[in-house]
């Protein structure tokens, strides 16, 4: 443990909080249709988009039409991305002449990018043309992130409005989240990253002779533009196979710090947006603080495990940090552990170290955070709506304990909401466990394992957890580009996304109709420390009960083996 490590971690948390507050306030104005200082810039473009697509920005819809529009838009995105990959050979901007992507891989990749997962069973620099990377993958990076944002905005409206019937207009929310939030942040982010060394060009790969006479070919491409939205949208799909470990994606400690900030910036801002939109900033603050405390616990755990390192390596007469396999010198232990925690707190999945080579417990923390449903800040939009599901569950359990009808924000929580919340928690959990079980007992599943023993189980468990939680990072030793994994994980990805979004919108639809009930002496306050602690407890207990047996057989056994030798 070193002082500089702690300083970097704390500095990150402070700067993140400092930036999240104003951004949260700004987004509340954007989604309430209030004036913002950026209106003169984006308003003309917005009007043009509505004219081109025949959108009436004054009409709002109920939750069913809202969900319908969302599903149709995502389906269109899926179809276009699927066929772009199959046809890339015949399309422009393919200087390396890559051929058609196989149908099972194209299915997996389309499902993965449409849902904000960005699981990648391919290596970017040897598979995808510049056109697919830009017009296919980058586009989905924007619109899948926007999809997450609009769902949480719709849920917020459902909770904030009293005796109403509509939760917003999907097309308007989508357009505004891209024009007012994602696009401007990405343009600035991409340029700052380029200044530090991230590449941005359309050149063919560069062949050169190295200093001592060897040959090397440098992969090129429009990387910075994809890198920025990959982070801001918590997408995580790397331009290159090595993702943010690659020096052309993440060249310096500064880009690393910025990329970590980009990942959690919008997710950390959204609780503040929520607080303002429901008319009580304290309601947002308590959620933010709960997330922050859980985050610090997980960072601490991951960092401790990586610093403790691998005693088997030290025993071979090796000095310095022993867990350097799969890490980059410029990031070292602290920044690798911090990045791994951030990327799995969010549904990002970008990596700056190879998670498969993390220490057993250092690799378990990312897995555990994904199993919690990525509610510690979480994906853009997805993190907060996931956390609000747990809020509803917490309020319900407290209501049971004191024998009162549960209420949240002055509205009764009834059986419809609890049913939907239960579905949203069960679908990903069942997907992860059944998927992992299936892969662990079939030849098609186990033949892809790289590391045998308990670590092999961890590889499978990580894959299905990452898919079910829409994260996208991997224990990449597992060979996932097989028809079995492409299809099984593709299905897990779709279930993990829409199996939550639909119940969440259903809750929005149920809540928006309700009358406000006046606050009484028995009303449970959802703004204090007690509530925050209960919420954190429920999050941990629900997930621990579901996943502890699986974790015990994978990372925990491996840890015992590692220190036992």
């Amino acid at each position, binding site marked *: 443990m070193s002082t*500089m490590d702690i300083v970097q971690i704390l*500095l990150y948390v402070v700067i993140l909080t400092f930036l999240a507050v104003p951004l949260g306030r700004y987004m509340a104005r954007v989604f309430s249709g209030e004036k913002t200082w950026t209106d003169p810039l984006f308003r003309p473009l917005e009007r043009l988009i509505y004219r081109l*697509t025949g*959108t009436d920005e004054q009409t709002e819809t109920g939750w069913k039409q809202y969900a319908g*529009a969302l599903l*149709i838009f995502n389906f269109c995105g899926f179809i276009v991305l699927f066929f772009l990959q199959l046809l890339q050979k015949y399309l422009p901007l393919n200087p390396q002449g890559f051929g058609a992507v196989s149908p099972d891989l194209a299915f997996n990749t389309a499902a993965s990018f449409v849902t904000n997962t960005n699981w990648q069973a391919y*290596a970017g*620099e040897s598979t995808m043309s510049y056109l697919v990377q*830009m*017009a296919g993958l*980058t586009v989905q990076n*924007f619109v899948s992130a926007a999809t997450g944002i609009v769902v949480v905005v719709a849920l917020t409206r459902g909770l904030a409005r009293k005796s109403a019937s509509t939760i917003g207009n999907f*097309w308007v929310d*989508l357009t505004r989240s891209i024009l007012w939030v994602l*696009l401007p942040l990405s*343009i600035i982010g*991409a*340029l700052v990253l*380029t*200044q530090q060394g991230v590449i941005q060009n359309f050149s063919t790969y*560069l062949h*050169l002779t*190295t*200093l001592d006479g*060897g040959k*090397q*070919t*440098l992969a*090129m491409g*429009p990387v*910075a*533009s*994809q890198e920025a939205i990959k982070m801001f949208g918590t997408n995580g799909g790397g331009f*290159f196979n*090595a993702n943010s*470990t690659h*020096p*052309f994606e993440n*060249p*310096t*400690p500064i880009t690393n*710090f910025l990329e970590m900030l980009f990942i959690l910036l919008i997710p950390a801002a959204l609780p503040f947006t929520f607080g303002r939109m429901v008319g009580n900033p304290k309601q947002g603050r308590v959620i933010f603080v709960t997330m922050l405390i859980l985050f610090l616990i997980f960072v601490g755990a991951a960092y401790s495990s990586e610093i403790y390192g691998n005693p088997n*390596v030290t025993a*071979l*007469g090796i*000095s*310095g940090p022993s867990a350097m*396999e*799969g890490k980059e*010198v*410029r990031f070292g232990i602290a*920044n690798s552990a911090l990045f791994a925690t951030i990327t799995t707190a969010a549904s990002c999945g970008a990596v700056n*170290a190879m998670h*498969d*080579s993390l220490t057993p417990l250092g690799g378990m923390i990312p897995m555990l955070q994904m199993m919690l449903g990525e509610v510690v800040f979480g994906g853009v939009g997805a993190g907060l709506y996931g956390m609000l599901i747990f809020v509803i569950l917490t309020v319900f359990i407290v209501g049971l304990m004191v024998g009162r009808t549960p209420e949240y924000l002055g509205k009764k929580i009834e059986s419809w909401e609890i049913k939907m919340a239960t579905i949203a928690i069960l679908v990903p959990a069942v997907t992860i466990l059944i998927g992992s079980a299936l892969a662990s007992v079939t030849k098609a599943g186990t033949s892809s394992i790289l*590391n045998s023993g308990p670590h092999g189980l961890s590889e499978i468990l990580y894959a299905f957890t990452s898919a079910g939680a829409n994260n996208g990072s991997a224990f*990449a*030793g597992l060979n996932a580009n097989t028809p079995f994994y492409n299809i099984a994980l593709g299905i897990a990805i779709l279930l993990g996304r829409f199996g939550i979004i639909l119940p969440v919108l259903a809750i929005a639809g149920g809540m928006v109709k309700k009358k406000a009930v006046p606050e009484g002496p028995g009303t449970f306050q959802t703004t204090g420390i007690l509530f925050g602690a209960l919420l954190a407890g429920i999050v941990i207990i629900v997930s621990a009960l579901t996943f502890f047996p699986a974790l015990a057989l994978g990372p925990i056994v*491996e840890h015992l083996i*590692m220190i036992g030798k």
Partner: protein
Amino acid sequence: MLKQFTKGFAMLLVMIVLTGIAYPLVVTGLAQLFFPHQANGSLAYKNGQVVGSQLIGQNFTDLKYFQPRPSAAGKDGYDATASGGSNLGPTNKDFLNSVAERANTIRQQNGLSSNQAVPSDLVTASASGLDPDITPEGAMIQVSRIAKLRNLPAETVENLVRHDTTPRQLGIFGEPRVNVLRLNLDLDTLTK
């Protein structure tokens, strides 16, 4: 229903033009205008010839050069079209064997005793397989070999390593490191 699909595709088309074509082109234009060196790969030159990128590690088979970290990118390592790590887990026997093997090779090459500690970055594969850096300790342990093979005073080489050590960025971020390509380029100017 059909109307909704038409609208879905229309919106998608707008987004493709806006975020998939206009956005990357605008960023490329600005990047090439303001940061052409970085946007094109931060290339490194020797006598006007491109010899690599300052950001991407490369193989050095000649022991007269400082050696980089082991690389799992491609068959021979440092293949910049096949980035990636070994993905070997911490208890994998093959992993531990190769660490032991690499440590012994480094001890032999640098004339170290069999129980002398070797810095971990020199015996572990990086995440990208293209790590351009080694730690200052990883460079120092190679100094006496370089000095001997190049007929230079050890002190000169040591000073060069110190000169080429990049500190934490802004004094805070990341770890101190030595860019191997930069160090070896400077080494060549030293001996001509």
